[in-house]
């Protein structure tokens, strides 16, 4: 029996301690038609992730309390299929390597003068998930033959 489900848009969670950045990105992605959740710290982000299916997280690296890299680590452990894009104005080689090592999709540097690079990262992240769903469905059809 196939299940009926409501049609929905991908959900993006935006995490940054600078509220104006959260607001600007939220407005932008809502305008593009995404479902958007917002958090100003990592703890809040984790509680939002626990409550709703989230496809993409856009997170700042440098935040008071738990930082973006630790949030990334926690997401990899608890929500391994959720895609994570880091944004940072505080770029060091060490930060960038940590983000790469812990499995971030990519890192976009602030200031986000235009959102082309971030939009592309979001689109790629969703495409990545679609690609896996397609692969999972293929497996199912193979099994039937």
């Amino acid at each position, binding site marked *: *029996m196939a*299940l009926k489900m409501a049609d929905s848009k991908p959900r993006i969670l935006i995490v940054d301690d600078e509220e104006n950045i959260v607001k600007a990105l939220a407005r932008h992605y809502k305008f*593009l*038609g995404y479902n958007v959740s917002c958090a100003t710290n990592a703890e809040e982000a984790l509680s939002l992730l*626990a409550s709703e299916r989230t496809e993409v997280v856009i997170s700042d690296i440098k935040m008071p309390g738990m930082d973006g890299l630790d949030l990334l680590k926690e997401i990899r452990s608890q929500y391994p299929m959720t895609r994570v894009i880091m944004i940072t104005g505080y770029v060091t080689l060490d930060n960038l390597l940590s983000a790469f090592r812990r499995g971030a999709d990519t890192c976009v540097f602030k200031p986000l003068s235009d959102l082309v690079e971030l939009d592309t990262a979001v689109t790629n992240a969703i495409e990545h998930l679609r690609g896996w769903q397609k692969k999972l469905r293929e497996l199912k059809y193979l099994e039937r033959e």
Partner: protein
Amino acid sequence: MPAESYNIDPELLAEFLDESIDSLAPLENILLELEAEPTNLDLVNKLFRPIHSLKGNASFFGMMRIKDLSHKMENLLDLVRKDKVVASKDVINALLPGVDTLKTILQRVRSGAAEIADEEEFKAVLATIERAVGAEKVDLVSLFNSIRGTLESVKSFLPADRVQAVDTLLGAIDRFTPPDKKGASPSSPKVDSTKLPVPLMTVSVYVLAAASLNIAIKPMLAPGMVSDVDGKLGSARQLVSPTHLSNTFPGGSVAVTNTTAPGA
């Protein structure tokens, strides 16, 4: 570029639900086997694997309750696996309704319903698992209470210089008793008990107390009391698993040359 819809393919979800229900089917029997053989790690691993996969996959399919519950069950199983929590009856009795609830949720979603119907019931299942996760701390408290009781009961039979040593030891035991069991003070930091290893000092205090009783105190007691002390020490000893002791004192031998308490 405007966002296109992103939905989980319903057939894929149905397939996932069916497979997950199948993967949980043997777990009840494995739990009953574990009850009979609480130290069998193979059984713990057999439980861990499907729960761990379910935890990882659930959020991809948007089943956040499944993720929450399986995550907590995984934490508990991980503590059992690492020998930090004993696979006691309480642990089994927390995991059985956990498995049952996971199956119920999967079946509900399979029939097109929401994950849970009764929020309170779900929270109760989670709470039982969280209590079992805290069992490690409860064991330590029993251990300390047992040692404290033993020390206090023999104090009046000892000469003054030994009483002082016993008091120092009692002070050390108080210091290392988990704070929430002494009547939580409002300033005590919030500790996530799932991440709390058996502290080195806790085991050290046990060994010190045992050594003091054996070497310095027992020779001064009447034979009847010695066997009473031995009995109490034996039951306290049960609460510290061999792994904790060998991790704390590698090499297996505990050389006790100085039987006085720290600072005495």
